C-alpha cells in the first residue's frame, strides 16, 4: 500500500525557482486540508548547481520520494530532467521545460550538452507520458521570462490532486503584488500547454 497520494519531484538549476514551486504546492495542500511533506536543496548546491526538491501530497511520512515512484517529474531544465529521471514511476508523467541552461562545464568548453531531442527520448522511455514545454518562451509571452517556473506550475496543476483555486491562492501569497498579473497569466498559459 502506498503512503502518499501523489509524489512530485521538481528539478532544475539553482536560481530557477524550484523552491518557490514546492512551497506553493505545499501551501496549497495545507489549504486543501491534506498532509504534505517536502525536502529541499539549500546551501552549497544552490550556487548554480543541480537542484532537486521532493513534494509528497497526502503523505505523513518521510519527505523524500523514492526512486522509480514519482507520479510527476517537473523539470525546469532538460538535462536536469534526465539527471533525476530515475525518480519517475513507469506510470508517471514528465513535464520538461525545453530551454537548456548550459553548465559551466559546457560553456568553458570541456563537456558537451547533448541534443534536447536525445534527452527527451531517454526520459520518454521511462514514463507513460512526456510533455515537452517551451516554458521560457511561454513566460516571455506572459510578460516576464522570470515566470518560467510558474508556467511549469500551470502545466503541473493538471496532473496533481489539488484544486486550482488553492494553488492560485498559495501562489498569490509568495509573489510580489506587482508581478501578480504576469504570473497569473503565466500559470494560465502553462496549463493551456498541456490541455
Amino acid at each position, binding site marked *: 500500500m502506498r503512503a502518499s497520494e501523489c509524489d512530485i519531484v521538481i528539478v532544475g538549476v539553482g536560481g530557477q525557482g524550484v523552491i518557490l514551486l514546492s512551497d506553493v504546492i505545499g501551501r496549497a495542500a495545507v489549504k486543501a486540508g491534506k498532509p504534505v511533506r517536502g525536502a529541499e536543496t539549500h546551501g*552549497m548546491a544552490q550556487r548554480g548547481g543541480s537542484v532537486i526538491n521532493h513534494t509528497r501530497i497526502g503523505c505523513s511520512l518521510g*519527505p523524500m520520494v523514492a526512486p522509480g515512484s514519482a507520479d510527476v517529474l517537473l523539470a525546469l531544465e532538460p538535462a536536469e530532467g534526465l539527471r533525476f529521471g530515475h525518480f519517475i514511476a513507469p506510470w508517471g508523467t514528465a513535464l520538461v521545460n525545453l530551454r537548456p541552461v548550459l553548465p559551466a562545464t559546457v560553456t568553458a568548453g570541456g563537456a558537451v550538452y547533448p541534443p534536447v531531442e536525445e534527452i527527451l527520448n531517454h526520459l520518454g522511455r521511462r514514463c507513460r507520458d512526456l510533455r515537452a514545454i517551451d516554458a521560457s518562451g511561454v513566460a516571455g509571452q506572459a510578460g516576464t521570462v522570470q515566470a518560467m517556473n510558474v508556467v511549469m506550475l500551470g502545466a503541473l496543476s493538471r496532473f496533481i490532486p489539488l484544486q486550482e483555486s488553492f494553488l492560485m491562492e498559495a501562489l498569490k501569497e509568495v509573489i510580489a503584488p506587482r508581478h501578480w498579473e504576469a504570473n497569473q497569466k503565466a500559470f494560465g498559459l502553462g496549463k493551456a500547454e498541456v490541455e
Partner: protein
Amino acid sequence: MVAEYLLGNVAIAKGLLEGGVGLVAGYPGTPSSEIIEAVVDLKGDHPLHVEWSVNEKVAMEVAIGASWTGARAAVTMKHVGLNVAADPFMTLAYLGVGAGLVVISADDPFCHSSQNEQDSRRYALFASLPCLDPADPQEAREMTIFGFELSESFDLPVLLRPTTRVSHARADVEAGLHQPAVGDRGFVKNHARRVALPVHARPLHTKLIEKQRSVEEALENTPWNRLRLRGEHGVIASGIAGLYVEEAIQYLDLDLSLLRVGTYPPPRRLIGRLLDHVEKVLVVEELDPVLQEVVERTAFRNRAQVEVLGKEDFIPLEGELDFLTVRNAIARMEGLSVKPALPIEAARILPPRPPVLCPGCSHRGTYYAMKKAFGKHAIYPSDIGCYTMAVNMGTVDSCLCMGASIGVGSGIRFGGEAGPICCSLGDSTFLHGGMTGLLNAAYNNAHMTVTIMDNSTTAMTGHQPHPGTGITAAGVETVTAPLEDLARALGAGMVETVDPYNLEEAIEGFKRARDFPGLSVVIARQSCVILSRKSKVKRREFRVGEDCVGCRLCVEFGCPAIEFEGERARINALCAGCGVCAQICPSSAIVEVRG
C-alpha cells in the same frame, strides 16, 4: 491550532518562541542557519536577545551565561560547529543550567553541504547529556519546547539533533502562541555549581552519573518512543529512519513489531520488551550505530534469545537513509526480493553541473591575481566558504575546518616546505577561527602570506552579518571590526588591501606580500556579487569585440557568464559587470558597452 507549511528550521524557531526563550545565539552553518533568521522574523515585539556570535564556542558560552541568569536560552549550529563549542559543552554537563538550555546541532548525513558527516548523538553520549532526535518538523517543534522543560527538570542542557531532512524538510506543522520570556532574572552566585575547580568537578561528575537513570526513565514515556508489538520479527528505528521503516512496512504489508525511538539515552525498558517479544530485530538509524550498541548491550544483559541485525550487513554506516535502502534491508530480513534502484544509464551523457562561484564573484579575481603573483608551484592552504568551490583554479590545496588554513599553512612551513605559501579564507571565517591562527603564526614567526577574501558577509550560508559588517542579527547597527587593524594587532608584519576587480593592483599587492620577509596579510575586498545585485549596484556591460582571437583564456577563467561559440568567446546574460575578464584578455577584445 492552524497548520502551516513550514520549513523544519522555522518549526524549531516557533518552538523556541513558544517555549518562552529569552536568548538565542548561534553561528551560521547549513543546515542550521534558518533557525536564527526565523526567530528574528517571527519574534515581533518580544523582548528577546538574538545574536549571530563570532563562532559556536562563543555562542554556547553566551547561551550558558543567559541560562545561568534565569533566561531560557538556545544555541544553534551545524554538527561541526559542536566541535568548536565542545569545550564549554562538555563541562556544562557538570555545572548544569539555570533556566532551560537547548543546544541545537544540525547534522548533515551525506555531507550535502559539509566537510564531514559526524553524528551529534555521539556528543550527547560523550557528555552524558540527553539528546532528542526528531523525525520531522512537527516533532522538532515539540521537542524544542519539551527540551526547555527537560533541561530545567534535570538541571542539564539538552541536545536537539535535527538532520538535513528535518531542518530542510517542509511539512504541515501546527504551532501555538509565542510565550513571553519568563523567569526572574539575575545571576545568582553559587561557586560549587558555577566554578569548575577540581574540588567542585568531582562531586558534580558523580551527580551527573547519578542523574542518568532518571533521565532515561523520564524520556521513556515521551510520545517519541513508540512500541508496537506484533509479529516475531521486529525493527527498532531512530528519528527520521522511523518514517522510512513505517513506509516500508506499509508498502511490503508486513506484520512486524516496531519500536520507534526519539530520545537518548534510549529507552532500554521498551527495547527489552521488544527483545522479549521477537526472535530477530533490525536496527535502523542513520550514521553511527548509537542505538544499535544499546540494543546489543541490552540483549546481552537480558540474555535475550534474539538476533540483532543492523549496521554494516543491512544498514550503511555512512550517508543518509531513504525509503528504498530501508525497504530492501527489511525485505532481506524477511527473505523477500530486493528492489534495485534503476539508474538511467543514458544519464552518463549529461555534462556535470557542480556548484560554482557566481558570475562576477570577486573570489575568482582574487585567486587569479594570487596565482599570477605566487605561481602554480606555491602551496595554497584554503578554508571553509564559497571559495572552496574554486578548487579548479589551483589555489585551494587544503580545506579542513573553519580557520584551519592559517594553522595548517604555518605547519606546512615549519614542517619543511621551502616554497611560497599563500593561505586564503573569508572574512567571516577569519573572524570565526582564523584570528587565533594568525596570532600563532606571528608569534612563532611563520614566513607566509594570509589572504582574507573580504566580501563583507557570510555568503555561503545565506548572507548573515558578522562583526566585520557592523550589523547584528537583528539588523541593528553596531561597531565594525576593521580587518586591517586586527591583522596588524595580531602581529602581521605587513598588511595590504587590494580590490580583486582591479587585477593589476591586486597582482602588485600579492607580489609585495610574497616578497615580504615574514608574515604578510592581503585583504582582498569587494562586496559579494549577490548582495551587490540585491542592493542594485549599477552594473557595467561588456561584450566581446572583433579582436577576439579565440585563445580561450577568458573561458578558462571559469566565469559562467563567458561562453565559447564557434571560434570566439561570448558574454551571456549572466554577466554581473565586474570587468575582470576584460583585464585578462590579451587581445583587449572584451570591451565595455558605453550607454
